[in-house]
């Protein structure tokens, strides 16, 4: 299992990357895709919608089970990766390349409250 150093992580297994323009890209971790197994369906949040931190905003389904994807920090969805909806197996192939949506955080400082790679690796190993 890999855990890139430059990303932040949630307890519910989302990764969060800060883009050059200050928006945040969100996906699920390698550990999460491995637990879910073959991903076959993805439903992304509508662009423009605001969610609270921890709110379920997207759905991912593997052959085995359905799972919510939660908003890592409060904010507005500014982009959704529609290409990924057409080929959800990309999440299995490259979990950290497969961003699902981007958000503009209400408070950029909130990202400081998320886990770093070392903390997440420990969390995922539990």
């Amino acid at each position, binding site marked *: 299992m890999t855990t890139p150093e430059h990303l932040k992580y949630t307890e519910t297994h989302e990764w969060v990357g800060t883009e050059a323009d200050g928006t945040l890209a969100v996906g699920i971790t390698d550990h999460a895709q491995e637990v879910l197994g073959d991903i076959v*369906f993805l439903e992304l949040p509508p662009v423009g919608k605001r969610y609270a931190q921890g709110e379920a905003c997207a759905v991912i389904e593997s052959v*085995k089970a359905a799972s919510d994807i939660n908003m890592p920090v409060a904010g507005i969805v500014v982009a959704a990766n529609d290409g990924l909806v057409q080929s959800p197996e990309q999440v299995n192939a490259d979990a950290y390349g497969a961003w699902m949506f981007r958000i503009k955080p209400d408070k950029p400082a909130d990202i400081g409250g998320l886990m770093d790679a070392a903390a997440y690796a420990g969390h995922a190993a539990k």
Partner: protein
Amino acid sequence: MLKTTPLNAAHRALGARMVDFGGWGMPLNYGSQIEEHHAVRRDAGMFDVSHMLVIDVHGAGARGFLRRMLANNADKLQDPGRALYSCMLNDEGGVIDDLIVYFLCDEFFRLVVNAGRADKDLAWLESLKERFDAALELWPRRDLAMIAVQGPNARERVWQVLPGTRAATEAMRTFHGAQLGELMLARTGYTGEDGFELMLPAARAETLWSALIGAGVKPCGLGARDTLRLEAGMNLWGQDMDESVSPLDAGIAWTVDLDGARDFVGKAALLARPQSRQLVGLVLADKGGVLRGHQKVTTLEGEGMITSGTFSPSLGRSIALARIPLGVNAGALVQVSVRDKQLTAKVVKLPFVRNGRILINLSQLTVEEKP
């Protein structure tokens, strides 16, 4: 503490994702379960099914006992090696378990029952043995391992690894088995494909497993086993039927022999309670999710429920088995509650796939207008 099969170490060495399946530590997959599924449909895959229990029935009273105990008629077992699928029912006509029974030779039958039901089944069989005062012995065979090798090339691969078995099994018809020394080969399975189920002493299992890998047979886990059996329209006990469900309402009326004078456990209850619902196949016509067990199905005749649902790798769509009211025919459109949405699915005849061939016309699935 999970129970383990003789192949546990082999699964771990292959990097399997192990899960608790009814108290057994079993491989869910060894990587992509979709690739494992395709291997079985297109070439050859194998499953460790040693968690299932073999129960040998020996004795002069064995056949008479099976005639009373099984919903299907054991008298269909006349030529040695013949296998029969049946359920055993409780006195209320509910399904205690489904099983395959092999007629091996005079006064010797072999049952293969579900892992999660093994203890219950054994206790039930012992109680019926008392009730009918049957002259027989029940031998649970935890000393055996079982490997199911399935797929269009499965038998060829088994013969490659066990050349001595070819002559004796090449002409063997489907749903037959043969005992060859301490190995039993049966042309049965739970995938809708050709192949063999191999029963052998536990100590030999790992060697055979490795040899089959060497011959190009892909190890497959319980995940692929579930999508394969669902595409093949085969029931899973605990999902599609249980002790509260009549086999007539579980799509397996064809395995219940109600004709003739033969009495069997549960027969009176079935005669008193005719079929009230039907088990059908559903194919999701809409996009928007995956069909899963317990989702509500709304039809023009009333409500029903999905009993098993998944994503079908062969169809590239979600499929399900659903118990719905009588009178809803193949071709009808129904609504399924998937999370917070109502999605349209089409009722289809089972199975979805058999012997590598898709039996559902996918081009007719496009939904133009919702009812």
